[in-house]
């Protein structure tokens, strides 16, 4: 079909255009819009009826008029050009260069919408990734092909943690490093610069593709940015056989952009004004991660989700938690005590940990050490609450032991340096050192054989 151009725009509001009398336009197709000054914008058909077409304008509808706006239906889906040249480059949400260099030239173009991986073609992720961070490796291990978000709050060091993981992540006993796809949505200039500098100084820049939409860029573009970034990640993983780590920050701004457009469209809101399809929409993004049969590469994902008012039950972290395979939760309380990384282990979880750890992967005692630490820490938290009411002096000998454990755990196990890369053995040994402050018979989650081998206490 030939490319059609129309000047029948009848409405422009909130990032949306309505074009009348444009029959035969395909749903989901790409649109090019020329405004009165000759400026070019990009859009996508989000509703196609025979009498009117609704277009989402990625650059927004600011400063458009109805008379002098030309709409051209490109008769192709929203696509990105793919080639190995992507690495080391920086793009916007549509895959256009942001680094002043020429666009990618390639015959290989793929629609960014992607499609669902056939569950029967997936492979279960089970290769332990050592991040060098004790609270993750020891208690919430990450495996290749997993999506493990960082739940954070404003002012917490999620970006530093994400950067440290990018720097340190490796398979145990293997030197292959990850290729990184970095997707930034609505972040500040300073945050984007932090990552850029971080990638440059750690020498991984040549292995990174960046997709950036800053806080002052058009929000509508955020809707397509993670899809564009993941299309690039899929290319790197499944065409070029690379192991890809996708860092996406911040999914909250993505969801807010989605709400903005949904409201403009008049969608029925479900919770807190977010549309009912927020779950499906987030799943389309998150589920693009994983491993596929007989493909060497993999996609591991670490999205950053900042929890509005630190509320983990807010729809965005809540729905994310239902899709991702666990979450790493940062705590303001630990952060205020000067502990880095302030990982709150109680609500943190890795669902894919069980098959990535143990005798053949990390160490045989690992699963039970993790369960025991969690049980002790949960009890220690109760004791802390109790101590804050009745005072530490009133506590029994046993309870004081828990308090001492909790303090040592927070400062020594949770806390570590920003450049401290702990091996999994070091993490587990540290856990044993802390657990050994308890008598043997209080460590009921561990096996006798574990105790015989690793217990260092005197009881």
């Amino acid at each position: 079909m030939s490319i059609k151009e129309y000047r029948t725009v009848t409405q422009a509001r909130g990032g949306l255009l309505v074009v009348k009398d444009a029959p035969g336009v395909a749903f989901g197709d790409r649109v090019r819009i020329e405004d009165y000054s000759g400026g070019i914008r990009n859009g996508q058909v989000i509703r196609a009826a025979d009498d009117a077409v609704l277009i989402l304008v990625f650059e927004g509808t600011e400063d458009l008029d109805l008379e002098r706006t030309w709409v051209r239906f490109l008769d192709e889906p929203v696509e990105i050009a793919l080639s190995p040249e992507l690495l080391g480059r920086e793009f916007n949400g549509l895959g256009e260069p942001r680094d002043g260099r020429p666009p990618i030239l390639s015959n290989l173009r793929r629609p960014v919408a992607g499609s669902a991986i056939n569950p029967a073609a997936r492979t279960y992720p089970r290769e332990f990734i050592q991040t060098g961070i004790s609270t993750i490796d020891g208690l919430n291990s990450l495996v290749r092909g997993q999506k493990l978000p960082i739940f954070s709050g404003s002012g917490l060091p999620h970006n530093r943690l994400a950067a440290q993981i990018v720097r340190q992540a490796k398979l145990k006993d293997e030197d292959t490093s990850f290729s990184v796809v970095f997707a930034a949505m609505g972040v500040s200039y300073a945050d984007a610069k932090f990552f850029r500098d971080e990638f440059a100084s750690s020498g991984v820049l040549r292995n990174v593709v960046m997709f950036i939409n800053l806080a002052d860029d058009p929000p509508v573009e955020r809707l397509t940015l993670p899809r564009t970034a993941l299309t690039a990640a899929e290319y790197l993983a499944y065409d070029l056989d690379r192991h890809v780590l996708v860092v996406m920050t911040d999914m909250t701004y993505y969801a807010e952009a989605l709400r903005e457009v949904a409201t403009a469209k008049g969608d029925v809101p479900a919770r807190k004004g977010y549309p009912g399809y927020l779950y499906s929409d987030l799943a389309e993004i998150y589920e693009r991660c994983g491993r596929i049969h007989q493909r060497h590469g993999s996609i591991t994902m670490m999205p950053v989700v900042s929890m509005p008012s630190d509320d983990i039950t807010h729809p965005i972290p809540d729905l994310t938690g239902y899709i991702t395979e666990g979450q790493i939760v940062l705590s303001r309380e630990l952060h205020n005590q000067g502990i880095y990384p302030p990982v709150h282990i109680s609500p943190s979880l890795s669902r894919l940990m069980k098959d990535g750890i143990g005798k053949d992967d990390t160490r045989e005692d690992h699963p039970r050490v993790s369960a025991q630490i969690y049980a002790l820490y949960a009890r220690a938290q109760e004791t802390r609450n109790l101590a804050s009411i009745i005072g530490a002096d009133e506590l029994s000998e046993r309870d004081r032991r828990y308090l001492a454990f909790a303090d040592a755990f927070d400062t020594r196990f949770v806390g570590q340096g920003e450049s401290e890369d702990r091996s999994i053995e070091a993490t587990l040994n540290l856990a044993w050192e802390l657990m050994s402050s308890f008598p043997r018979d209080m460590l009921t989650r561990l096996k006798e054989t574990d105790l015989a081998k690793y217990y260092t206490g005197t009881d």
Partner: protein
Amino acid sequence: MTELSRTGAIRDINGPIVTVDLPGARSGEQVKIGELGLFGEVISLAGTTAVVQTYESTDGVRPGEIAVGLGFPLSVELGPGLMGGIFDGVQRPLEKIALQSGDYIRRGISVPALDRARQWEFEPNEALEPGAKVSGGLVLGTVQETLTVKHRILVPPGVAGELEELAPAGDYDIEASIARVRTAKGHILKLSMYHRWPVRRPRPYLRRDDGISPLITGQRVIDTFFPQLKGGKGAVPGPFGAGKTVVQQQIARWSNADIVIYVGCGERGNELVDVLESFPQLDDPYSGRKLMERTLLVANTSNMPVVAREASIYVGVTMAEYYRDMGYDVVMLADSTSRWAEALREVSGRLGQMPVEEGYPAYLASRLAAVYERAGRVETYGAGSGSVTLIGAVSPPGGDFSEPVTSHTKDIIETFWALSKELADARHYPSIDWVTSFSGHVHTAAQWWHKEVDANWERRRTAALALLARDAELSRIVNLVGPEALSDAQRWELEGASLIKEGVLQQSALDDVDTFCSPQKQFALLDIAIKIYTSGAELIAIGVPVSELQNLPILAKMRRIKSMYTSDQMDQIQAFRAEVNSAMEEIRIEYAKQGEPAVS
């Protein structure tokens, strides 16, 4: 069916909702959309236009393209070849699709659920002679579908007449005619080994019966504390990370049902793969064969089209009813019904229907109830008694159990296994909260336990729950004023409750020994824990200080014994009972020697 098909044109595409001009369309009818041939179903009609929800992404579809009404509603194929399979939300076989379209699911692909080429060894029902009266649900013969499952070939519901011919034993494909039936009107019907059934219509049965035997899942907190009956309906609500999926998978693995149907409805791809990869490795504790031989999966991952997600529950339950009609006990697990409800909400939102609670449509409660009502134990038409047990996971937003899906579900179901975030955070799994969970089946289950295991079952269960309730009460005091305020007897109550929690309720799905626990072992653990508590309480009453009891090594062993010995090593567990008795007796004698029982 082609003579029934009609064509029309697409008018409007709004995501998965497509409006078509299709005169004569019927509500629920299947429609093929556009040149891609995407499948969908009519959800509302007005004049000559029909609103169609499509099971696949509509990207690239244009107004003016063709729409074909197929004349029949969404149906599934029922026949040999289902077991061990993995299907998508509209019963397309995912493994075959992977062969045809690679790692991603190509749109518009249409592959029948059952293999047309495969030959099955058919054994005719010897009781049937030509001339016999046959009707829907009657067993025509059997096929060994997998090593574990004998598939009974049924006369499709609605067919009735006189048997003219029944095929002799031999190999047939599923389309071959294996029987001819002359109806009352004189029509000759050829029956093959499979038939189709519309998923939104419950399959008929002779009558509904009460459940009588518990579904044994090998999970102590379920079987012993909150039992489920075969034919019952239950829900597992819990916030994310509380362990819903593990609870469901444990039931799928270890329950004593004949058939397990696992519907991953809007779930994680990686977790479904875990099931796909691990089940063929796991042994069925009852038949000794591989679990996959009695398991069937319906997989609609969260990123697959939302409308197919809505259909997946119906597709699953229809297949469950089909195996029920063969006289089997079927367990269907739906993970998660919240995603299904959200699919309803998403579609109703796109239709601009008036939302009632949190954006959900007004028909949420009635739809939920209708789905759960398809569970039950029934007398089938031709294969004796069969049952469908339906267990749905619920994912309440923010873990708030008062939200619409959880609260409506709670009104419908009989067994409620409420998962608690606090327990999960302390890695107490399964994190089924003993305070908020309930089972309406305790008395029926008790009859089974008393007959099969021990006559003291209900008494011990009640004692344990009372101790746990007391623990909750005392813990509140401790949190206010500290443990020093408690008497020795009260502190022993806390210790007793902790023994129940750690020694009985907690059960690790990852521990090879403890992952499955036989009813005998369940009762023994409970009985010994209660025994330790009661004899300890007696000792405290005669003046033994609680600290002396707390230092007994049997306490640590009670917490560990579940994972020391398997269900086959009951001797060692009984030996531990003797150990407990003698340890307690020793203290009693010691204190009796000192004479002077302390006055309390």
